[in-house]
């Protein structure tokens, strides 16, 4: 049951000119959030941006003892720009948690899963890693970014999953393997690793390659999709992706976490 509340900024941590973490009071949204869910944040009360923006809840934790929600944000336009400039204490209207989370209830300690992140797609995987770790489900991270400095929250992943389980790919080879994150996963699969389920979040191109790859191996998967959203709770019907059955699926409600097999990748 989503909550419409106003939460104050506790801290903003900048990674580089384009990336930051935004820590808000946890409010009622935080404790209710499952991995893969997101929230709609209003950046200021002006007309630009006009609509709320969607952000995965990256983590639910504490900051100096205060319960908080963390969002990891890449600056791409007015909304993400504005959200990063607010002072500590600024009240931010938050609607959440929203959407269908990653399916993890059926996982057991004997299962092994993969987390695949491309760029800012790391965001929903932090909380997922935390919950899997709490439940003792072993998870391998495959994380691709442009370069070392764009690979974010590495310490968190390595602490939660164990450093040896975290593998990286960068475009320039500055961290891990040079190349694509999907190559990393391919290599692992080729080496005979089998995964009970693959959880992924990243750019469209990554999803496409991954969907094809996983379809070939018949691996179960859940992708945390993105699309432009006006409402975030299933009423504008603006955020849809074409489904296999010819219908359109709402990314905000039926998603964001959807099995790639439900999507008509040819029509995306």
């Amino acid at each position, binding site marked *: 049951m989503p909550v419409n509340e106003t939460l104050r900024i506790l801290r903003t941590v900048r990674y580089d000119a384009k990336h930051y973490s935004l820590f808000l009071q946890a409010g009622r949204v935080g404790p209710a959030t499952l991995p893969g869910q997101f929230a709609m944040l209003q950046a200021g009360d002006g007309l630009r941006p006009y609509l709320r923006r969607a952000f995965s809840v990256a983590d639910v934790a504490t900051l100096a003892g205060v319960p908080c929600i963390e969002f990891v944000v890449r600056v791409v336009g007015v909304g993400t720009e504005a959200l990063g400039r607010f002072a500590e204490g600024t009240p931010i209207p938050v609607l959440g948690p929203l959407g269908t989370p990653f399916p993890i209830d059926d996982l057991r300690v004997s299962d092994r899963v993969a987390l695949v992140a491309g760029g800012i797609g790391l965001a929903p995987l932090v909380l997922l890693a935390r919950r899997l770790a709490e439940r003792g489900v072993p998870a391998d991270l495959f994380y691709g970014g442009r370069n070392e400095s764009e690979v974010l929250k590495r310490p968190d992943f390595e602490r939660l999953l164990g450093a040896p389980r975290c593998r990286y790919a960068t475009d320039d080879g500055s961290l891990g393997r040079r190349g694509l994150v999907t190559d990393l996963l391919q290599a692992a699969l080729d080496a005979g690793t089998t995964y009970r389920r693959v959880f992924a979040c990243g750019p469209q191109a990554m999803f496409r390659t991954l969907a094809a790859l996983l379809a070939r191996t018949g691996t179960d998967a859940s992708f945390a999709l993105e699309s432009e959203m006006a409402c975030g709770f299933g009423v*504008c*019907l603006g955020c849809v992706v074409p489904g296999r059955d010819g219908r359109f699926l709402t990314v905000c409600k039926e998603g964001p976490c959807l099995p790639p097999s439900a999507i008509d990748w040819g029509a995306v």
Partner: protein
Amino acid sequence: MNAGDVDLTARLGPLVLKNPVATASGTFGYGLEFTDYVSLASLGAITVKGLSLRPCLGNPPPRICETDAGMLNAIGLQNIGVEAFLTEKLPELHARGATVIANVWGDTEDEFRSVVERIGDDPRVAAIELNVSCPNVVKGGMVFGNDPAALGALVSAVRPLARRPLIVKLSPNVTDIVACARAAVDAGADVLSLINTLVGLAIDLETREPKIGFTTGGLSGPAIRPVAVRMVWEVRRALPGVPLFGIGGIETAENVVEFLIAGADAVQVGTASFRDPGLAGRLVREVAEWCARHGVQRSSDLVGTLKTRPRAEHRYA
């Protein structure tokens, strides 16, 4: 005066609402999505997503984009169809005490007639609103909405079948909104809603493609409010006896009051519900407070009270 003492009743011909704050079609889902944020019974009315005879899949994405002080949409009228609405949604809406306006559309006159017939005299539907103005369809709405004669013909065809109060929602993409209003009223509309969205286009410069898959989309939000207020005023002045819903860019109690003064008997809140799903409920209270602060006993006393000055002709030196 206390806000609680203000009489908010809005009378729109056969349709009487407990207050003048309703919600606009396509921006409030089927109402039930909002129960976490607002008490449906507290609203003047809720207008549900445009219903067609058969479930409609809608347009391929992208369907929406933000623009300055507004957004474009071309959802393509995706909806579950009138049948599913009546059986799956309406009972709960009714149980929750919502005053329900069924917004309906068709690709053809026949389809319009069939949807309206299907609703029949179901008392759980407070009124039927014909969407003759959706600009996002290839055939369908557009044709009816922008031509007074076609509009009149459509309303005449539907009117005898409509056994609930009949609202006609007008398109603003016309030279003469009064001509359209008159055609709808002459053909039997009980109430008019204005406005629907303005047709707009926004382009992704990198791909050189429209940001909306359908190419054009409907512009809504604060950007269009002055156009909407103007059209409400024009229609009110030309057809003073015709009940009106004012729609377009409403965000605050002041915006509601502006529409009432311009001549709307009630309003519908649209895009702003995306920004804040609890907005419509809050506006009911805030309109009452505004009235109390201004010594207005009945919100209906505001309706059509705009004082205009005579317009001078050009004076030359």
